[in-house]
């Protein structure tokens, strides 16, 4: 069947299960061999298996099948949990993720691009003893051959021979059901091969039974066929042919040895394998899944049935939540619309204020309040809990700490705090940076910790908390703290601070380490220390309209706090004019505006600079940036304005013709101008309906 329409659903749900699998694996590794994690992992693996088989994603189906078999053996106590098994399970989870993404990503044809993992499958099968039951081939000959393979059972009653259809699934069960159906007609005295062999699938397509009944042959045939998957039925004694020797059926026709005769796993494309291995090795670049394009929002007053319920996060009780799935684009569209409505509201209120009409004023006020409520509802509907991203981190921390020989107790708090979906997608990478920094540079090796009287295992805490209209994400470690001496020494050496300076406050420290390329790491490790640590976080968070704060105490640890606005889509902006054109500059990046007095301008090394109090800032002219001719002085006596923008430690003055007020604007991404014009971060529609481009401050050099 055409399953492609379900691919997105498959992907979303599989990712949730992967997340569950990884969490329980961590639990299993920590735990005391409790059965619960194994069962939970088994269930998730099983579900993914069923879904992938249905989608025709054979690589995923095979992998999950073997994994399931292995887990079942663990569950039944045949295998003990140890480091080797854990490694195998973790590796399987990684490759399962790759296989799932690949299967759905549809690179190349479904068959060609699918990767399997012969080596891993082999290990899964070979772990301990391998009793994997492989599906047996249908018997040669097929149903045209009337040569019954089952011997006629000796006994009383009429002989009923049945041949199942060649592709009958679970034919043992089907045979069992047919026997059950026959029993409703009378006494079944013997079955050949015996019921136990039938149920164990130890027969080909034929079986026979003897039925003591008074109903007609036609009726027997009808009932037997009614049980399903029946190819041939013959009621009555064999005429010419005698059954093979009458010997014990199972003995004369031993079931083929499954391990030896099972068809080899599907042919694997070797180049794809290499890719896969590569991907799997890049634990340092553990991918955060892209937006799935779909997520759940609480439905308001929707009927209970048919609601999709989110996979409950680890160990929470399953509560029937009322959810509907909504395409993310719908929510984006809603957000855009409400944004425009908010802007129009502003304009409407302006107009109403200028018209002396109490009735109009009242209606506008009422509409305004409703629009405000609507905006809040829509913004709320875009919120998703941070665990959707945070749930990946325990695994990342485990892998990173193992790679570095550290022992870490990792805790996550505030999983249920919600953020706008688009914000959450952006914040994953910066948090990964912070966690890696803490593991790599913050937390000491166990022996070093013990030497200074700390517990051998370091503590790492990731927390999210709501603070008015912002969300605070904190990464706290109890490691050695930022080495201020080294930071200061490096800052002195590079001329960033006064050589006489001997102390650094936390703020000064942040300003220094947030500088692009500032790294004091002695060695560049695979994880961090390439000079793209805190500065990358700082820049990214600022670009999202947030702020970073760092507190570090030598020998006791470091806390980095990232403060984020709840949403990206609606921002306050300063409107600035150049000739007839209006541009928007997000207020988060504007520190102040000043009137441009000629005395403020200097030329330094051939570049125009602005001297503002004791700072010297580079000057950019909006007209130059957007390719407009310079202003002719005579026509307009009013002085130009300078917007002082700042991003991280960079500040600049942007000269504009005039300021046109502040507005809440709705950021719309657009495609048309993307090539070449990186100057703009998006576009917006102003209250009067005219479009305006949004200056991306981070792109200004």
């Amino acid at each position, binding site marked *: 069947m055409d399953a492609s329409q379900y691919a997105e659903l498959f992907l979303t749900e599989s990712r949730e299960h992967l997340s569950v699998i990884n969490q329980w694996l961590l639990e299993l590794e920590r735990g005391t061999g409790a059965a619960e994690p194994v069962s939970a992992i088994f269930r998730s693996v099983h579900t993914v298996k069923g879904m992938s088989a249905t989608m025709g994603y054979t690589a995923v189906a095979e992998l999950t099948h073997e994994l399931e078999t292995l887990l079942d053996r663990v569950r039944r106590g045949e295998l003990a949990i140890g480091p080797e098994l854990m490694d195998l399970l973790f590796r399987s989870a990684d490759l399962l993720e790759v296989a799932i993404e690949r299967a759905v990503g549809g690179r190349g044809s479904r068959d060609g691009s699918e990767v399997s993992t012969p080596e891993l499958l082999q290990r899964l099968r070979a772990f301990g003893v391998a009793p994997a039951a492989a599906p047996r081939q249908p018997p040669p000959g097929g149903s045209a051959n009337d040569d019954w393979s089952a011997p006629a059972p000796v006994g009383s009653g009429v002989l009923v021979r049945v041949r199942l259809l060649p592709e009958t*699934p679970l034919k043992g*069960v089907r045979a069992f059901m047919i026997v059950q159906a026959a029993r409703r007609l009378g006494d079944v005295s013997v079955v050949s091969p015996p019921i136990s062999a039938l*149920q*164990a699938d130890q027969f080909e397509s034929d079986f026979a039974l003897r039925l003591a009944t008074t109903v007609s042959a036609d009726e027997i045939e009808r009932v037997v066929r009614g049980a399903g998957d029946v190819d041939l039925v013959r009621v009555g004694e064999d005429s010419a042919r005698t059954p093979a020797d009458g010997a014990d059926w199972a003995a004369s026709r031993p079931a083929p040895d499954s391990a030896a005769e099972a068809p080899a796993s599907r042919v694997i494309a070797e180049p794809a394998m290499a890719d896969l291995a590569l991907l799997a090795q890049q634990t340092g670049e553990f991918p955060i899944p892209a937006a799935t394009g779909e997520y759940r929002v609480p439905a308001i007053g929707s009927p209970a049935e048919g609601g999709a319920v989110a996979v409950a996060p680890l160990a929470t009780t399953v509560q029937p939540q009322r959810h509907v799935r909504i395409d993310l684009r719908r929510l984006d569209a809603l957000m855009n619309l409400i944004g425009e409505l908010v802007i129009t509201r502003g304009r409407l209120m302006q107009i109403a204020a200028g018209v002396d009409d109490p009735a109009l004023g009242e209606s506008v006020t009422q509409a305004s309040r409703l629009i405000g409520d609507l905006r809040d509802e829509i913004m709320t509907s875009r919120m998703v809990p941070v665990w959707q991203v945070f749930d990946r981190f325990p695994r990342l921390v485990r892998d990173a700490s193992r790679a570095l020989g550290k022992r870490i107790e990792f805790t996550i708090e505030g999983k249920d705090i919600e953020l706008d979906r688009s914000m959450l997608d952006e914040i994953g990478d910066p948090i990964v940076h912070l966690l890696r920094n803490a593991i790599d540079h913050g937390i000491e090796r166990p022996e070093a910790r013990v030497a200074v009287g700390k517990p051998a295992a370091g503590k790492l805490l990731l927390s999210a908390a709501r603070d008015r209209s912002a969300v605070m994400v904190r990464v706290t470690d109890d490691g050695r703290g930022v080495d201020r001496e080294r930071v200061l020494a490096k800052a002195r050496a590079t001329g960033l601070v006064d050589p006489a300076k001997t102390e650094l406050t936390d703020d000064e420290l942040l300003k220094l380490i947030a500088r692009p390329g500032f790294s004091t790491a002695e060695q560049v490790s695979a994880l961090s220390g390439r000079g793209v640590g805190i500065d990358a976080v700082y820049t990214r968070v600022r670009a999202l309209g947030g702020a970073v704060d760092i507190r570090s105490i030598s020998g006791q640890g470091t806390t980095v706090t990232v403060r984020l606005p709840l949403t990206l889509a609606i921002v306050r902006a300063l409107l600035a004019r150049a000739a007839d054109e209006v541009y928007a500059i997000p207020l988060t990046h504007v520190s102040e505006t000043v009137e441009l007095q000629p005395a403020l301008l200097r030329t330094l090394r051939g570049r125009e600079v602005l001297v503002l109090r004791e700072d010297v800032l580079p000057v950019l002219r909006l007209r130059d940036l957007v390719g407009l001719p310079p202003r002719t002085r005579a026509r307009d006596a009013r002085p130009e304005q300078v917007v002082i923008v700042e991003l991280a430690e960079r500040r600049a003055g942007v000269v504009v013709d005039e300021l046109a007020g502040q507005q809440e604007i709705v950021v719309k991404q657009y495609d048309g101008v993307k090539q070449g014009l990186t100057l703009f971060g998006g576009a917006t529609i102003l209250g009067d309906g005219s479009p305006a481009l949004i200056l991306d401050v981070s792109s200004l050099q």
Partner: protein
Amino acid sequence: MSQTVLVCDDAIFMRTMVGDILAQAGFEVVGEAETGVQAVEKYKQLRPDLVTMDIVMPDMGGIDAVREICKLDPQAKILMCSAMGQQALVVEAIQAGAKDFVVKPFQPSRVLEAVQRVLG
């Protein structure tokens, strides 16, 4: 009036797919359940003409749910949805009162054949 179905599976994906197959064949999916406990509850509320039941579900597995439902209504028409390698479980489900089974991956024609047998 079209016949009603209760679809029980812990995967939304599976529920959607089974639901679509049956809806296209003219059934009305009146409810979904993702645990065995929910399946029993919803059966009580909805009394559907047909139930599709996954075997592995959290809380209460599909087989126990079949037992519970058949206690409530010996005439319940339950179709088991199983995966490869679950012979023993399917047999157990049939003994518990399920009327037939289909094996994942589902082919719509097989599902509908099985449904006809269950209802027939």
